[in-house]
């Protein structure tokens, strides 16, 4: 409406004023006439100098002002204002029209119509008005784009079934395809819901450099009226079988704020967990901790799902999938205890039935006398604590009990620190009279690694019994959440038997997270469990001496397995994600059909030093059972890093096993799975992304349109000044606005005189 009014008053649409240059078409005769008229007017005014009048000064000002304004309008017209435009020559320029062919275009959020309706109505068929208008001016070339971009003969060829949207790739393709042709610009009709990870900056810079404007037409609503979305699920790529997982699920919604809905977790179709969650307020995201157990081994597809709510506009974004490799193997941890004590016995008891943990234990019962348990072979740890890196680094976690730092050589201390920092293992130091400050660990490389500050030793310190309680972080941490939900876990901790400490540990290091804490008999805080990431690994401190009370205390029923659960989870967490000598990863656990799977392999020797001269081979088994071998080559740019890629030709789960050897000796092997399937990313964050489309347009010199103002698109492209153009001069002196202004000023003067009795 405003646009039409503007066009009526000023003859041309606003964009022509934006695109054009303003100039005066003043000729010399007209200039002489204007000069003569001005001189006459000045002389006439001078003759009035001596005339006295009875009217008021204000009236004189108003009347003179109105007369001068009328004269100014006349003068403006006499100066012949002109708009200089570069107009595309009809049918001399090409126009690339890029049409979004992805699934999200079928979302019906435009007055009940799918987003694709705009394309079907305006750009397809004989009655398509926008197409007709464009075709009059340009040679139109259509491109469809989704996960890839293709030339299409007509908009009617689109199926709107693409499983990804890659705006940058589509623009690059059209730019390259139309290179060398006179190009007026590109039109991109899309909801802007880009699903690629790549940044678009390079594409836009390239278009700008080539002076190719992109005119974007954003279809769909920016926000849905009614929608629930499982925005993100953060799961580990691989876990040990039987691990109790607590994963973050990010939810968002519109139209259902504050409602409680069930959130379920399915393991290959079988529901393994359901919990009630409260949806966040409008426009906000909420992170929900979801607990479930990875009970079945293999590559498991977990689905996190909220049922469809009444009136929801997009139902496909109510579920997210995550592929998790559930490993059924026994991970090795070493527990070195410096003295016979009950804590040792009960930690061992807690984990001995866990088939996926092998806690090799070494108890120093007397000087140079060790008692070994759960060793793999008779020679393991025969001489006590490992003396070489190769020996120590075979374990994924190390638990140090009540053992003093002085019993290790300086090299062993550095080795333990490197176990965390370089090997990426998990280290746990337990409380005891030979631990922390009391064990002389302050100032050692290991003390550096620990997440707590080791203060002055006090051999007489005894905290008495105190209650361990979870901190805010601990209340949702997988190890310390000891019951079904946060509230139940907190209640359970309140009910747990008290524990004691002989190590006064009060301060966590910056960057460390305290999970359990308590208050000792001096009313001072005592850390019970804290951790921090250090280098490639993680380090924990548990400065209490008798967590076995959580099992043995008289009030704990025999059937209460909290102590065992705590320790299993703690050691599982310690060994979780610890790198091997050969590690394989891909950028994503799912790729689109036809998209390459890019493998990245890290190869280390037994001392965890990068290996560059290894022969690395990937054995790839397709979903149908076909196998292929793929050599993986060293990247040269980074030590120990090897890369390869292949394009899967089947949908389903690919099994990838990588092995590495050097000089005919195996260094190790690794396995992972990648899912090849059409994704549902199109339905997530699927609101029309106006900011992105606006940015594409503005960065390239184009304009952003919506279906409501798309009729102005052909003119906007025509006068963008790109391609083969002619210069057009558009006279502006006959704009209705000027005539109305002139009449208005004269009428106002007349009216004023009548009102004041001066006529």
């Amino acid at each position, binding site marked *: 409406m405003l646009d039409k009014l503007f066009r009526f008053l000023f003859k041309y649409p606003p964009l022509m004023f934006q695109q054009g240059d303003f100039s005066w078409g003043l000729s010399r005769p007209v200039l002489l006439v204007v000069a003569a008229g001005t001189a006459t007017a000045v002389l006439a005014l001078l003759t009035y100098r001596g005339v006295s009048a009875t009217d008021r000064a204000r009236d004189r000002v108003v009347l003179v002002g109105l007369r001068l304004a009328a004269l100014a309008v006349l003068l403006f017209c006499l100066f012949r204002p002109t708009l200089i435009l570069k107009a595309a020559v009809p049918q001399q320029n090409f126009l690339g029209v890029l049409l979004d062919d992805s699934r999200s275009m079928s979302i019906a959020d435009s007055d009940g119509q799918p987003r694709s309706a705009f394309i079907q109505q305006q750009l397809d068929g004989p009655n398509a008005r926008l197409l007709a208008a464009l075709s009059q001016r340009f040679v139109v070339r259509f491109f469809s784009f989704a996960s890839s971009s293709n030339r299409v003969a007509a908009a009617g060829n689109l199926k709107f079934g693409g499983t990804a949207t890659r705006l940058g790739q589509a623009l690059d393709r059209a730019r390259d395809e139309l290179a060398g042709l006179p190009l007026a610009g590109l039109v991109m009709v899309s909801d802007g819901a880009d699903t690629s990870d790549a940044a678009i900056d390079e594409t836009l810079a390239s278009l700008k450099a080539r002076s190719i404007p992109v005119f974007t037409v954003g279809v769909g609503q920016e926000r849905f009226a009614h929608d629930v979305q499982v925005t993100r699920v953060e799961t580990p790529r691989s876990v040990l079988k039987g691990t109790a997982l607590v994963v973050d699920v990010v939810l968002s919604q519109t139209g259902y704020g504050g409602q409680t809905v069930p959130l379920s977790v399915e393991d290959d179709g079988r529901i393994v967990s359901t919990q009630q969650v409260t949806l966040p307020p409008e426009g906000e995201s909420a992170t929900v901790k979801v607990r479930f157990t990875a009970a079945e081994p293999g590559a498991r597809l977990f689905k996190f799902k909220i049922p469809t709510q009444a009136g929801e506009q997009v139902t496909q974004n109510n579920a997210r999938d995550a592929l998790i490799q559930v490993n059924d193997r026994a991970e090795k941890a070493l527990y070195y205890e*410096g*003295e*016979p*004590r*009950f804590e*040792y*016995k*009960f930690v*061992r*008891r807690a984990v001995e039935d866990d088939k996926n943990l092998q806690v090799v*234990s070494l*108890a*120093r*019962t*007397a*000087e*140079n*006398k060790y*008692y070994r*348990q759960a060793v793999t072979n008779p020679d393991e740890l025969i001489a006590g604590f490992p003396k070489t890196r190769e020996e120590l680094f075979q374990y994924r976690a190390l638990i140090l009990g009540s053992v003093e730092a002085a019993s290790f050589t300086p090299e062993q201390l550095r080795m333990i620190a490197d176990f965390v920092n370089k090997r990426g293992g998990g280290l746990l130091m337990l409380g005891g*009279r030979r631990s922390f400050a009391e064990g002389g660990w302050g100032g050692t490389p290991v003390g550096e690694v620990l997440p707590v500050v080791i203060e002055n030793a006090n051999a007489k310190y*005894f905290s008495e*019994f105190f209650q361990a309680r979870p901190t805010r972080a601990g209340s949702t941490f997988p190890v310390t959440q000891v019951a079904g939900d946060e509230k139940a876990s907190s209640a359970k901790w309140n009910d747990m038997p008290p524990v*004691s400490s*002989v190590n006064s540990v009060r301060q966590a290091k910056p960057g460390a997270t305290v999970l359990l804490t308590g208050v000792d008999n001096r009313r001072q805080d005592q850390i019970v469990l804290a951790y921090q990431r250090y280098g490639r690994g993680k380090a924990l401190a548990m400065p209490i*001496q*008798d967590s*076995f*009370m959580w*099992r*043995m*205390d*008289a*009030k*704990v029923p*025999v059937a209460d397995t909290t102590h065992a659960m705590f320790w299993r989870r703690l050691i599982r967490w310690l060994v979780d994600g610890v790198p091997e000598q050969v590690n394989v990863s891909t950028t994503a656990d799912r790729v689109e059909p036809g998209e390459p799977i890019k493998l990245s392999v890290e190869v280390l020797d037994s001392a965890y030093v990068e290996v560059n001269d290894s022969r690395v081979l990937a054995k790839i088994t397709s979903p149908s059972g076909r196998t292929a071998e793929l050599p993986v080559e060293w990247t040269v740019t980074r030590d120990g890093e090897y890369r390869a890629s292949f394009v899967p030709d089947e949908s389903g789960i690919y099994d990838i096993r990588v092995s590495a050897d050097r000089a005919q000796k195996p260094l190790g092997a690794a396995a992972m799975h990648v899912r090849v399937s059409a994704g549902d990313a199109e339905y997530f964050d699927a609101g029309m992304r106006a900011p992105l489309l606006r940015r594409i347009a503005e960065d390239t010199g184009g304009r952003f349109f919506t279906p409501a103002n798309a009729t102005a698109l052909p003119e906007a492209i025509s006068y963008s000044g790109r391609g083969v153009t002619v210069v057009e001069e558009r006279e502006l002196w006959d704009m209705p606005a000027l005539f109305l202004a002139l009449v208005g000023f004269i009428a106002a003067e007349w009216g004023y005189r009548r009102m004041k009795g001066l006529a």
Partner: protein
Amino acid sequence: MRRAAAAVPVIGVLILAGVAAAVAQRRGGFGGRNRREAIRPNAPYDGRFTFVRVRYGQDYGFVSQGLPWSHDYPAGEQHFMKILNELSYLHPHTDETNILTFDDPEIFKYPVAYLCEPGGWVMTEQEAVSLRTYLQKGGFVIVDDFRYQHWGNFETQVLRVLPEARFYDLELSSPIFHAFFEIKTLDVPQYYDPPPAIFRAIYEDNDPTKRIMMMINYNTDISEYWEWSDTGLKPIDESNEAYKLGVNYIIYGMTH
């Protein structure tokens, strides 16, 4: 190294023998075990290993020969703890020892307990329930100083606690005989019982591949050696064997 470790109890016994006279005097001479002796206060819990002797029957506030559970108290455990302190890194309380009943919640803080002379062992229902819980959670009980005529009562009491329990005769290959010292023979010296000593055990879930919950020294009295090891009444070598068994039991109980 092994020889050196084996020599340590010998040294320990010599040390104890060296102070024999003084200790004997304090205990009222070698015949003083018939005297009543006041029970010393229990050591408050501080995380260190504390020897726990189980009391059954009425609490008279003293120990005497007439109260079989208290036989050898306190010299037996004190000597034993001193030996353990010398030999190992256990770092136990050496002078302070505890006396607790099976139904005392405090006993659950000490997962190794010692039961003496169960020939006359009697339990309340509460004690039986509590002992069952203690064993099931991970507690380890050493039973000592009883013989043939006592087995019936002992078995009856144990079956009250663990009706499903089976008693296994242990062989030398059992890990408990190798937990610290390498015990070479089960034909151990007897203080006064006619040989042989019989070593029995109750396993968790009656499964010999699992841990021993109750170690039973039947037809023998190793704590008698502990008590009198500072007197020279018996050869040092014999006392050593009794200590070795005791040390192995404790180390086993702390690791299994």
